[in-house]
């Protein structure tokens, strides 16, 4: 069997990897010059299936739990240090709501938060610790997938090309183009996200920290460089990539400063942003039309959902499986 996968973002890379592991002949095609350069490039990399339940439906948690195994065992690039949710004193109602909507956490007071993240000791009176969650560096993860594929005899990657121009030669096409597939996938829209990367030696965090706030929640994810932190991410109903607003930066920086004042002296290493491909229910979808399968709508959950979606797409191709919860 020969399968063409279009798009080497996180959805396409995991799909190609999953198929190649099942001994399918895979050709991965990407219009950019390398893997993971679309919106995957700006991801936070939190593998946080329980935290995400705060603003997502149960299926995100169900699919997301599979990602923990994938990123720690199948392709071990994630660290399982858990994730921490904190809030300033006056936003305690937000912690209460967060706890009501999520599970698998330990409630923490200021001292316990300090045991988990010493630099945050007594900065926040309340928090939740999700010990089983993990995080990864998205750019390393996409590179690692590309390396795996490069080492497999039945997989080939083609960068800088829209397609191979040989549709008939494939048994299946897996369309993982993300937002670029908007014209073919009714209802798909873009939700803009903006992020920045800070570098400082004055703060040390070992796991993602989410600070709740009624208007501008923020998360800070440690990068593999021990002094770098990704701060994200805005969520705007807007489809313009690459235009970073001053307001988004002020809010992200203000929130980072609230998490720890030492971030004020950090170096701004990078600012960036893109649009997340999203369906109206903010849930992922696998669309099968003839011999083409589209995996799309991963929204803000690319690294969390792609392993489960890739495995289901491979089941459709190899076993004619059907997943009604994803394929309506």
């Amino acid at each position, binding site marked *: 069997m020969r399968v063409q996968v279009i798009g080497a973002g996180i959805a396409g890379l995991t799909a190609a990897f999953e198929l190649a592991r099942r001994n399918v002949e895979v050709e991965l095609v990407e219009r950019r010059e390398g893997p993971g350069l679309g919106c995957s490039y700006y991801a936070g990399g939190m593998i946080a299936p329980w935290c995400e339940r705060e603003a*997502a439906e149960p299926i995100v948690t169900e699919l997301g739990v599979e990602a923990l195994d994938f990123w720690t065992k199948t392709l071990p690039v994630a660290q399982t240090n858990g994730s921490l949710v904190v809030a300033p004193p006056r936003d305690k109602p937000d912690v209460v*709501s967060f706890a009501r909507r999520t599970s698998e956490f330990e409630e923490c007071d200021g001292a316990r938060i300090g045991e988990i993240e010493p630099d945050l000791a007594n900065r926040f009176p309340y928090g939740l610790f999700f010990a089983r969650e993990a995080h990864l560096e998205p750019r390393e993860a996409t590179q690692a997938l590309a390396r795996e594929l490069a080492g497999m005899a039945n997989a080939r990657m083609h960068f800088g090309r829209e397609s191979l121009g040989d549709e008939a030669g494939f048994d299946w096409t897996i369309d993982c183009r993300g937002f670029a597939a908007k014209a073919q996938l009714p209802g798909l829209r873009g939700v803009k996200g903006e992020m920045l990367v800070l570098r400082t030696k004055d703060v040390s965090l070992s796991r993602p920290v989410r600070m709740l706030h*009624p208007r501008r929640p923020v998360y800070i994810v440690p990068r593999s460089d021990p002094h770098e932190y990704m701060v994200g991410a805005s969520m705007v*109903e*807007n*489809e313009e990539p690459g235009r970073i607003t001053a307001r988004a930066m002020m809010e992200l920086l203000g929130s980072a400063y609230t998490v720890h004042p030492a971030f004020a002296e950090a170096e701004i290493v990078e600012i960036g942003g893109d649009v997340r491909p999203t369906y*109206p*229910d*903010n849930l992922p979808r696998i669309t099968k039309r003839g011999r083409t399968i589209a995996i799309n709508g991963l929204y803000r959950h690319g690294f969390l959902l792609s392993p489960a979606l890739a495995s289901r797409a491979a089941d459709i191709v190899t076993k004619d499986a059907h997943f009604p919860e994803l394929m309506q």
Partner: protein
Amino acid sequence: MDAIARADDALEVYGAKLGSRLLVGTSMYESPAILADAVRASGAEVVTVSLRREAGGARAGGAFWDLIKGLGLRVLPNTAGCKTVKEAVTTAQMAREIFDTPWIKLEVIGEDDTLQPDVFGLVEAARILSNDGFQVFPYTTEDLIVAEKLLGAGCEVLMPWGAPIGSGRGLNNVFGLKALRAHFPDTPLVVDAGIGAPSHAAQALELGYDSVLLNTAIAKAGDAVAMAHAFKLAVRAGREAFLATPMEPRDMAAPSTPVFGRAFS
């Protein structure tokens, strides 16, 4: 008045007749799909939508605005997030083009932390927009003098807060809201902001307020669709109670039979 007559009890603002006295916002929902279900469950005929931030550099919020238009309801665009008169006026003009409506929910926010309205800027922006043909719904406080000036600036409806935006504290100053109602018996009054629970909405309607506008209380509920329906019922209950003229509270129990041995108790 019987129940059937009450079904015709429409709210009239700027010449439009609205069957539902619940106006709802469209932000902070888990997804646009849940937003659509919740709006349907609420029975609202008017939805507010913000533009300031979503517009970006090239009015790139089109996909979300199309979803809002797809609800098939009357859209009340708002100037949420605007802090100056100029910003609010520009946003209103853009809203008129995008949604093809003269309606604008005018917010001029004094500062980000409390989100209190800047009533000075509000009156100025209301005058500019009214003169430009807009039908302005001003988000204001319960201050009587500001209310007077807003009416003088051309507003035909007032939207005082119940409590600070997003606080969910209900009607903070019932005395002030009653005074506003008493001073402007013929102006449509909408409690906007601060509603947290259906009981708050019912209370506003019981006080004689014509309508309530809310967002967070539905969008951030555990089950937004069920909460939207609860608000629909509460608004209806409050309105019917107002029309039925609630009893006057009194300080003492009112025994239905005389208590012997006490004079006239």
